[in-house]
């Protein structure tokens, strides 16, 4: 538990809250027994196909894996969970290790798209932070290992008076267009933040009560951001083209490294917590190598390398000592206990609720 020692109880708090929150959600994960054999495979050359988010793993780390195990890594990238799901559902074969987010793991397990390899029983399974063991999307970690986790909050430039006053989603959506506000092109993030701003509780973010969405829509009516996108935000904040941005905490870490005037705000109504996972696609051609890769990534050293590259926290015990001090010291990543309490899992909504999200998001984007 070195990573979470002295003043960094914050991370534990975050993880604990998250774990509680996540466990509270209904579990769709099947808990059939691990199909894996007791013997863990040993590296014997060959290759492994990794399908990951863009710019989300250190290329040097993959080289190190090949050097240590003799297994060649073929990296392919995707840009959203939906792209990943679409590929697998369309019957794409040839992917071994994939990196779905929390709610997507739950979906994929239900749809039978993941191999039940009993990740918790891997040699390095013991390194999984207990707070990330019984998550709602994969109870007992049968299908997936934790990769990176983070929150979606607000980046503000503290030299801008109006920006510096923002403490909540309500402030964020009320920000004057002269303040140059950017927002993520992500209907789940935008609409859930608007729901929170209009007083919907975290546990109720998948409500099907239309009046709640009507209120969120009304709030969004006056919200005219400068940019709606999912890339280029770091650069704009650093150059001070934009003063406020809805952003992931790891990207805010990168921003503040280049421009110390930027800080991360945990909105007072709460914010979404997300966690990405390493999982194995059903019918993976290199099943053993995929297991070896995931096990290798659960090594504390590799957890630290991943965090130092991405700027997001990991859930591998013992990786704390090896972290870049700047990451350890960043309150965006190592949240204070009060801030950590604000984080709740990204809502994993029914089709009915998601259609209401789409309705609000479509109305909003078409009124820009």
């Amino acid at each position, binding site marked *: 538990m070195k990573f979470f020692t002295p003043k960094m109880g914050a991370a534990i708090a975050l993880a604990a809250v998250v774990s509680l929150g996540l466990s509270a959600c209904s579990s769709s994960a099947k808990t059939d027994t691990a199909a894996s054999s007791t013997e863990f495979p040993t590296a014997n050359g060959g290759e492994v196909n990794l399908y990951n988010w863009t710019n989300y793993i250190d290329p040097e780390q993959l080289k190190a894996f090949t050097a240590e195990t003799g297994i060649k890594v073929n990296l392919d990238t995707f840009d959203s969970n*939906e792209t990943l799901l679409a590929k697998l559902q369309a019957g794409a074969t040839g992917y071994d290790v994939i990196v779905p987010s929390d709610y997507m793991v739950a979906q994929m397990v239900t749809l039978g798209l993941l191999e039940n390899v009993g990740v918790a029983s891997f040699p390095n399974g013991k390194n999984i932070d207990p707070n990330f063991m019984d998550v709602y999307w994969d109870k007992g970690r049968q299908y997936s290992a934790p990769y990176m986790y983070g929150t979606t909050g607000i980046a503000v430039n503290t030299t801008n008076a109006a920006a510096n006053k923002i403490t909540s989603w309500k402030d964020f959506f009320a920000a004057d267009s002269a303040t140059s506000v950017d927002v993520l092109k992500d*209907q789940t993030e935008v609409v859930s933040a608007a729901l929170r701003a209009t007083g919907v509780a975290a546990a109720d973010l998948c409500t099907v009560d239309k009046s709640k969405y009507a209120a969120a829509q009304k709030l969004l009516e006056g919200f005219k*951001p400068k*940019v709606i996108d999912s890339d280029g935000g770091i650069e704009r904040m650093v*150059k001070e083209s934009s003063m406020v941005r809805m952003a992931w905490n790891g990207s805010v870490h990168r921003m503040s490294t280049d421009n110390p005037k930027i800080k991360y705000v945990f909105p007072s109504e709460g914010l979404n917590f997300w966690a990405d996972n390493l999982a194995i696609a059903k019918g993976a051609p290199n099943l053993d190598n995929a297991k070896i890769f995931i096990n290798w990534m659960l090594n504390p050293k590799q957890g630290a390398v991943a965090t130092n590259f991405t700027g997001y926290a990991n859930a591998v015990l013992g990786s704390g000592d090896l972290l870049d001090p700047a990451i350890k010291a960043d309150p965006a990543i190592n949240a204070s206990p009060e801030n950590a309490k604000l984080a709740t899992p990204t809502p994993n909504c029914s*089709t009915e609720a998601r*259609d209401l999200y*789409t309705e609000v998001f*479509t109305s909003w984007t078409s009124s820009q």
Partner: protein
Amino acid sequence: MTLDLSLPTAHDDSKAPGKTSKWLAAVPMAFLSFTVGIPLIIIFVYSFLARPSMGVGVIWKLDLTHYVKIFVQDKLDGTRSFDTRYLKVIWNSFFYSGLTTVGTLVLAIPVALWIATRDPRKRILLVFLVTLPFWTSILIRTYAIRQLLDEKGVLGKIATTLGFSDNFQILYTPTSTIIGLVYTFLPFMILPIYASAERFDFRFAEAGFDLGARKMTVLFRIVLPQIAPGIIAGIALVFIPGLGSFLQPDMLGGGKTNMIANVVANNYGQARNWPFGSALSVLLCLITLVATLMISIAARKRKEAKV
């Protein structure tokens, strides 16, 4: 003009010089049916199917509501009303693509005429320069334009130096989308117009001048009618693909100037509503078809008028 009466007749001309066997055409035809036809059929079929309750894709159950949903909105207050949101997006697509066509036309005609009047060796170099942008990916070039238009970029710095910096904001506005579209499509307008202009015998223009016509008269009465086939081809190559633009509104318009492709993308992405995205795509196809027909009717009328 002399009438050409020596045209080959339709009977077995496959052995005539310059003619090829129909079997050689069969390969590209098969390729096109496979890469264009089948995806179109899939999209068309999807637009009439229902969504699964989980995941993405479609289930094999007839569902005709997607087309209705383009025009009818189930509002959050429980009422139904005529939906203007998608029509507005379609209008946006027409408007931006139309402006792009006009913009590229105005820029391309002088350039094409200028290149066509250089001496032949220089022409090759100039045409080569027009195609230079194709050397790098459109994505990279759009990123570069973003840097250029940024208020903290080159243009922004010039504006600051000249002293009208307070509200310099071109990037992430509709203007920026149009600049990006005009830039992207300009070569597609220049090249066909040049191809027409190159074949034009500029002695006709000289003759016009000699007979006392003014510059504008020569341009509109002699030059433009002769290069009209190139102009029509250019309009077709710019306006029609322009309707389906995705990158420029997304990257330069700051995600705010939605064109139809952007809405289709969201339905295939986070909204996880493939059938609705397909219905919108079918609508885009129909609109494109109408636009193509209009352009080809215009082309035919021009031909008939000439005869």
